[in-house]
């Protein structure tokens, strides 16, 4: 009886380890080998902005103008979009489809609403976890640099076989941590 119990426990323990471990494995593969895309950030509804220890992110590319124009009524979440780069090197949505496609330029998104030739989508990386210590400064820096007239922030996302891993938030072309350090040094 004791032996059976121990064997069952070993299986349970392996399962408990496997869940976080599989996340680590998949994400580290994506971060190591995925294609880099830059997404310009947008202002966030202030009510939504900070929830504990992450920054809520919005992206300019979430307002998509896909070509060819999809049959809007048939779009049901989850959707898949292909990405392309604009003249400045930022990512934009190219096509939207219901079909499960894969590739280093494909991400799965949630459906938003259709308005006036624009399709709103939600990218699967709308939260950036930050350490509690720097969360308030990070939030402020993000807000100041992604408002209209001063759009100076973007994130890099690695995409591999449809898995999108948020890599880094850049403010003023510096990684968040470096930017905050530089700001602190200035004061």
């Amino acid at each position, binding site marked *: 009886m*004791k032996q059976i*119990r*121990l064997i*069952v*426990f070993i299986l*349970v*323990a392996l*399962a*408990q*380890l496997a*869940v*976080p*471990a599989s*996340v*680590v494995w998949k*994400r*580290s593969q994506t*971060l190591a080998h995925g294609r880099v895309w830059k997404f310009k950030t947008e202002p966030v509804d202030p009510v939504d902005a900070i929830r504990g*220890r*992450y920054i809520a992110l919005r992206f300019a590319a979430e307002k998509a103008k896909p070509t060819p124009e999809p049959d809007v009524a048939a779009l049901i979440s989850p959707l898949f979009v292909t990405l392309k780069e604009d003249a400045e090197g930022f990512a934009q949505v190219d096509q939207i489809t219901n079909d499960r496609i894969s590739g280093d330029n494909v991400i799965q998104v949630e459906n938003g609403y259709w308005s006036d030739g624009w399709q709103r989508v939600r990218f*699967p*990386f*709308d*939260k*950036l*976890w*930050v*350490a*509690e*210590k*720097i969360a308030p400064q990070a939030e402020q820096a993000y807000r100041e640099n992604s408002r209209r007239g001063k759009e100076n922030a973007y994130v890099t996302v690695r995409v591999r076989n449809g898995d999108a*891993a*948020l*890599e880094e938030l850049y403010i003023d072309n510096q990684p968040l*941590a470096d930017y905050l350090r530089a700001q602190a040094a200035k004061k």
Partner: protein
Amino acid sequence: MPGTVNRRAVRWLRGQLPELVAAGAISSENAASIERHYASVETRSNFGFVILATVGAALVGAGIILLIAHNWNDLSRAARTIIAFIPLLLAQALVAFVLLRRNDSRAWREAVAVFDVAALATAISLVSQTYQVQGTFDDFMRIWMILSIPIVYLLRTTLGAIVYVVGAVVWLFDLWSFFGTPESPNFFWIFLLLVIPYLLICYRRNRESSETAALAMVVALASIIALGATADFAKSDLGPFSFAGLMTVIYLCGLRFLPRTDQRLSALAIIGGIGIGVVAIVLSFQSAWHMGHDFNWAGRSFPQNVALAIELIFPIVAVVLSGWDLMQRRARFSIVAAAAPVVAAVTWATVKICNAPGGHVLPADCSFVGAAVFNIYALWLGIDILGRGIGSNSIARANFGLVLIAALAMARFFDSDLSFVTRGLGFILVGAGFLVANVLLFKQRATA
């Protein structure tokens, strides 16, 4: 094995010893040796210690998380990943140790169970943060709970099982409060099914323990909440019928599986009984029978149909349980109370047929019929419970019957356009009924 005996039974037996000796059934030597045999039972009251150990383990777990959160930002991704796994590995090593060496200590088992489950949550959430994994709270809860439930079985922790059921309810509320397209609550029932075998194990091991009763009660209350969400999601108008079924199942299970030697009812039976009363009163309102949903198979999703099937299970189980006992001629339950799902089913069908398109009856008249049936039923139920209370000399039960009748009367006073004089007279009548019934009951008890 004094550690595994039922303490309540031992206390009862000890109380009986002087009488048994006096009656000559056993000698005083026998009585003394029985006393000696159970001497250690009372002193081994370690539940308080179990709670303290559990809280201690939880605090240690929380402390580890706080230590890790400190200076988190300066660590590399790889270092953070390794740290996320350390508490989990530590907890798992402790579980293995307890299974091998401290399997008989309840405090050890409960404490390492809490530690392991907390460490698992820590590992998942720290890894998610490190690798910027986005996911909703209910995704997290779901995977966490599925990976935690085996621990309840392996370490035989009833406290853990109760926490697990509460966790399932938290998951449900997180889902339910979601605005927009409602999400399927069906997964809750899988959560609940996963803990039922444990409840049965507890029951077989010690049916009279307060832990078994507490777990059964938590499962019953969670089912009531979840049935509300399920009925809401199924959009089938079957809610009244289904709730009558669930309450009856709880009532019957309380009576059948947790019988008490004295005339009292188990807590589970009380919840079920009160539930049947509440359902009867709610269904005596005409608005409960306005059937708003056009039932259209084509427009229904598969999860909605599963929810519908779940709704139907409870009345069926209720009818089977009561039918079985009736056939065996050992029904201890109130037949009027157990008939609630049948009455609800017949009424539901009548109102549904009456509402059928092309009929000549106004919908308002249909719902009036439904409400009228349940007014009569609620009154009958109240009288029956009152009668059973008087019969078994139980003041609580008799008064519950009266409360039911009074609630019905009050519901009608506020519901209908009666004059103040009529309402006043009604209240006086109900109040007098209470007084007379209680005076009679106490007199009967005094003479008995």
